[in-house]
């Protein structure tokens, strides 16, 4: 290039619109004729808890002494109707993930880790395995549209029941467990042929709408003699109305799963473009509970992209009673661990980016049914890691709560928060930092 050419041709400028990912996707679609299916949650940047900050105590607020003054973390779920509500030592639960999408070792590790710190795990779309019941001191049994593995004995042996209407990664969508993961045991539990792609329905087979849901919940209560807390889980899309309708239908607890929630296998277009961010779902859900006089009577469990104690504290400050984690729990077990980098490379990816959980070739032995891969995960060690992670999250939550002067993490409140940008301020309904301006609240 001569010095004159430099002024004729501008330097190469990649398009912000047609960025490398968009171009790669167009090429991939053109080559294959099929959309991308993958696991995990959205990968693009979304308004999230990082956009909020705690104010901390100052002259007008009185902090608590770290390591000395009590800051409780317990939460009781099911106080509305259940004869036997469940009490968790920490406000962080393990979200529903199926045996089938996860290995038996993975499920066992989740149970061990959660039980060690006094919290619950949740079954998933595939029924309850004896291992997870054995290793989960508190187990929530999901009632899903597919009803794979559903039976009254497991229903009664559970500590709580969760009617799954939707999930944050795909509100309005069902699921597909690809044939590679349908081992003999998975097939038997689901009463389907081995090796075929198994569709999980997007709608329940025997009820439609909130009035039916109320009757369905009552049936589950009748079968279990009104002992178990009944949760209703929804994918965040219309959180105010869904929460209100779940309360109307008789839920003891509402699980609000934001779009950052992970999935075992769903279309990328669904993960990235359907539902609303977790940050934007909490206040409308809390508002619905408050409008009905049910806040703290019907517990709100928030999930979707929660990674650390700060995220937990922010959820609780916005009005949640507890949170649920899925992807973060898998990472704690060893998912995407750099020790398997060579194998991730062989799969065309890298540690930290591996998301083809549906293919069953997980080097970490978690999202697989291959016996040799699954055997790599030691449930005792992995369970210990999860327990450590949950403990750290709890300590972080307490640290923030004490700094805000709270003797219980539930005493955190929106007043403790500010937002870093207008979007987060509007969604969380807290002021933009350094101002008293809450967008949409009419106090310009």
């Amino acid at each position: 290039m001569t010095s004159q050419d430099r002024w004729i041709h501008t330097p190469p400028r990649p398009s912000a619109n047609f960025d490398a990912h968009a171009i790669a996707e167009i090429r991939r679609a053109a080559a294959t004729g099929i959309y991308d299916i993958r696991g995990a949650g959205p990968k693009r940047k979304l308004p999230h808890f990082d956009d909020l900050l705690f104010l901390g105590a100052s002259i007008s607020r009185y902090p608590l002494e770290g390591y000395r003054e009590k800051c409780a973390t317990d939460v009781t779920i099911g106080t509305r109707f259940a004869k036997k509500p469940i009490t968790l030592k920490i406000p962080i639960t393990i979200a529903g993930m199926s045996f089938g999408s996860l290995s038996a070792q993975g499920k066992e590790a989740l149970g061990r880790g959660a039980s060690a710190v006094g919290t619950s795990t949740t079954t998933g779309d595939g029924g309850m395995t004896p291992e997870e019941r054995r290793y989960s001191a508190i187990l929530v049994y999901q009632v899903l549209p597919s009803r794979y593995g559903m039976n009254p004995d497991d229903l009664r042996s559970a500590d709580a029941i969760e009617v799954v209407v939707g999930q944050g990664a795909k509100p309005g969508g069902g699921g597909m467990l690809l044939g590679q993961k349908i081992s003999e045991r998975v097939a038997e539990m689901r009463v389907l042929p081995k090796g075929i792609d198994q569709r999980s329905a997007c709608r329940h087979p025997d009820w439609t709408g909130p009035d039916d849901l109320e009757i369905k919940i009552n049936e589950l209560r009748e079968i279990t003699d009104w002992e178990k807390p009944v949760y209703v889980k929804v994918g965040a899309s219309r959180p105010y109305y869904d929460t209100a309708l779940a309360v109307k239908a008789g839920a003891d607890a509402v699980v609000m799963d934001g779009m950052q929630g992970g999935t075992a296998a769903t279309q990328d277009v669904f993960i990235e473009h359907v539902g609303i961010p977790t940050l934007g779902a909490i206040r409308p859900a809390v508002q619905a509970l408050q409008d009905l006089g049910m806040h703290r009577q019907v517990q709100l469990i928030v999930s979707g992209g929660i990674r650390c104690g700060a995220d937990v504290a922010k959820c609780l400050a916005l009005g949640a009673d507890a949170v649920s984690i899925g992807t973060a729990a898998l990472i704690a077990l060893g998912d995407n661990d750099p020790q398997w980098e060579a194998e991730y490379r062989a799969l065309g990816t890298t540690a930290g980016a591996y998301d083809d959980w549906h293919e069953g070739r997980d080097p970490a032995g978690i999202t697989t049914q291959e016996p040799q891969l699954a055997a790599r995960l030691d449930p005792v060690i992995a369970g210990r890691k999860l327990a450590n992670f949950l403990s750290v999250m709890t300590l972080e939550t307490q640290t923030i709560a004490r700094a805000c002067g709270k003797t219980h993490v539930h005493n955190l409140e929106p007043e403790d928060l500010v937002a870093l940008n207008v979007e987060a301020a509007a969604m969380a309904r807290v002021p933009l930092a350094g101002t008293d301006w809450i967008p949409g609240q009419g106090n310009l």
Partner: protein
Amino acid sequence: MPTVDLATMPLRELNAALHRLKPDTNETYWRLLNPRGQHSVGVGIDVPIAVEIEGHVGYYCAGMNKQANVIVHGNAGQGVAENMISGQVHVKGDASQAAGATGCGGLLVIDGNASARCGISMKGIDIVVKGSVGHLSAFMAQAGNLVVLGDAGEALGDSIYEAHLFVRGKVKSLGADCIEKPLKEHHKAELRKLLDSAGVNGVELGEFRRYGSARRLYHFHIDNLGSY
């Protein structure tokens, strides 16, 4: 022989009493009066008893039944015998939508008609409907048998897996991946057994047509896009 008047006894007490029964109970015959369309009558029973219900019931009667023989002398609302594991449920009248939904075992007999989605996601239950069934019956049916002596509505057996469907009357249309299959001798034997269990006599087996999965949609493939 306990007789329970549901006009006076709360449903919750009835179901709790049924759940307290031991396998060797002497209270093996229960008669329920005045159900008046209540939902969840006799759900979650797990003992080999007989329960006769004198009247119409609402949603989910005999839901998740195990072992019990439940007879409804009337019509049944949505989801009768849903997710039944074993035993028998016999509706003398008509049944609403999703009869026998997701049932894993046992026998459901409906003397009248069954509405839409009869046998949806069935997982091993046998269902005999002496009348007709509504649209999308046996949707995603995984295992078990659905026998219909009357007609079947639109999209019978849509996305069916391995369940067997036998229809004596007309089928308005078949759903995705559901096809007619030959009615061989061993199918006739299976059908005869089901009809005998349901107390159906004087029916020619040759009048039935058998339907099942073409198994074309068992693995997602772009060439099948038009079927999804």
